[in-house]
Structures are given as structure tokens and as C-alpha cells.
């Protein structure tokens, strides 16, 4: 059950289509179909949590992009708000990628186990 969960978590990060991201700047491997993820995530489970986290990180990236757009088109005049949006996007992405790294490590650790 633990391995299935970890695997599901990996799929939640890796094969989920990021709807909001533009195709060119998308996450690597973000074009896979959600059906490839196998079992549907259990409601309230860790996989669903990760799924929500990916969504939020994506929202942050889009918000940062929109902030740059607003600055360039003159809709806003505060450079610091744009930089804060960038920093938030960066930190939340780093948080997600650290979570993913930990999951991959745990998965590899289990796969290396002698039976």
C-alpha cells in the first residue's frame, strides 16, 4: 500500500496535464493523460493533496507571469509586487520539487530492497 501511494504521488506530479501552463513553457512530462495514472486518487489522500499542491504551484507561476505582463503593459507600477509574485512562484515551485525529490528517493529506496 505504501509503494502504491508513493507511486501514485509520483504520477500525480509527473504525468498530470498542467491545464493552465502554456504548451511551450510547460513542465517536462506535463502532456501525459491522467488516465495513465492508474488507480483514481483516494479522496482526502496524499495523492489528492499533491494534486492540489501542483495546482497551487501552477497558479503561482501563472500569477507571476500575469504580474510581469501587467508591469510590461503599464497596468501596474509597483515593481516590488511583481518581484514578490516571482519569489512566491519560485519558493512554491521549490517546495513542490523538494516534495517530489523526497518521493522519488523513497520509491528508489524501496525498489532497492532485497527480497
Amino acid at each position: 500500500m505504501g509503494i502504491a501511494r508513493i507511486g501514485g504521488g509520483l504520477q500525480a506530479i509527473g504525468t498530470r496535464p498542467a491545464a493552465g501552463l502554456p504548451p511551450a513553457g510547460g513542465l517536462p512530462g506535463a502532456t501525459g493523460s491522467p488516465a495513465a495514472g492508474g488507480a483514481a486518487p483516494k479522496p482526502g489522500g496524499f495523492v489528492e493533496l499533491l494534486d492540489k499542491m501542483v495546482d497551487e504551484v501552477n497558479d503561482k507561476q501563472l500569477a507571476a507571469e500575469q504580474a510581469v505582463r501587467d508591469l510590461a503593459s503599464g497596468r501596474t507600477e509597483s515593481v516590488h509586487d511583481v518581484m514578490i509574485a516571482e519569489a512566491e512562484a519560485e519558493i512554491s515551485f521549490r517546495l513542490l520539487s523538494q516534495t517530489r525529490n523526497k518521493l522519488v528517493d523513497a520509491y528508489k529506496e524501496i525498489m532497492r530492497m532485497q527480497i
Partner: protein
Amino acid sequence: MSLNRIFGSFDVSGSALSAEQARMKAIADNIANASTTRTPEGGPYRRQRVVFETVLRECADGTKQTAGVRVAAVRKSDAPPLRVFDPDHPDADATGFVAYPDVSVPSEMIDMIAAARAYEANLEAIKNFKGMVNKALAIAR
């Protein structure tokens, strides 16, 4: 959104940066109009001052928390204008006196230094907060 709770400190410092920017704009206005004798409302330019107030945010449990600062108002000074004897000036009155704004450029410069330093202090707060989060993320590495 749950991720936003991490960035509460960013919001606080960001609001302070915006407030300081507004203060800087008021000071720039004061210096630019230091010898303006005509305004749409009549009379000389009047010195502007920004008033800051704390922002309160309602938490999920109903309690209120301070969450940064904002510009409550931009007040115009009620001080009497400086009367300078200059009979050749087009805006001189019958006695030859011209009403100049009550702006003292040296004191505006001091306010400007204060605003710039406050802006820097808030930038430093953001930088340090970012450093803290990044250090915390390095725990997992």
C-alpha cells in the same frame, strides 16, 4: 489557498513597500511644486502628507490580525502659505506679496531619506524571509 499562508510575511512587507512608494510620490510632488503659486482649487500648492494605517485581516477563527500597512489618506497641509515680497510676480497681490507653498525643500529631503530607508528596511525583511524559507527547504536536501 493553503500555500498562501507561507507567504504572509511577503504580503506584510509588500504592503509596506507600496505604502512607502505612495509616501515617496507625495514627497516628490511636494518638491516638484515647492514654488507653485497656482492650483486648480486656487491659491498656492499645499504640502501633502500621507497617513499610514494598519491593515486588519480576519482569521478563520474570527479573531483579527494585523496584516501590513496601507495609506489611509493623503492630507493637505492647512499651514498658511509663505508670503514673499515680489511685486514683479504675476501672482503678486495688491501689496506686492506672493503666496508660496508651505513646502520646505530641506525637510522634504529628510522625509525622502526616511522613506527610502524604510523601503530598504522592508526589502531587507523580504530578503531575509526568503532566505529563511530557502534554508528550511534545504532541510529536506
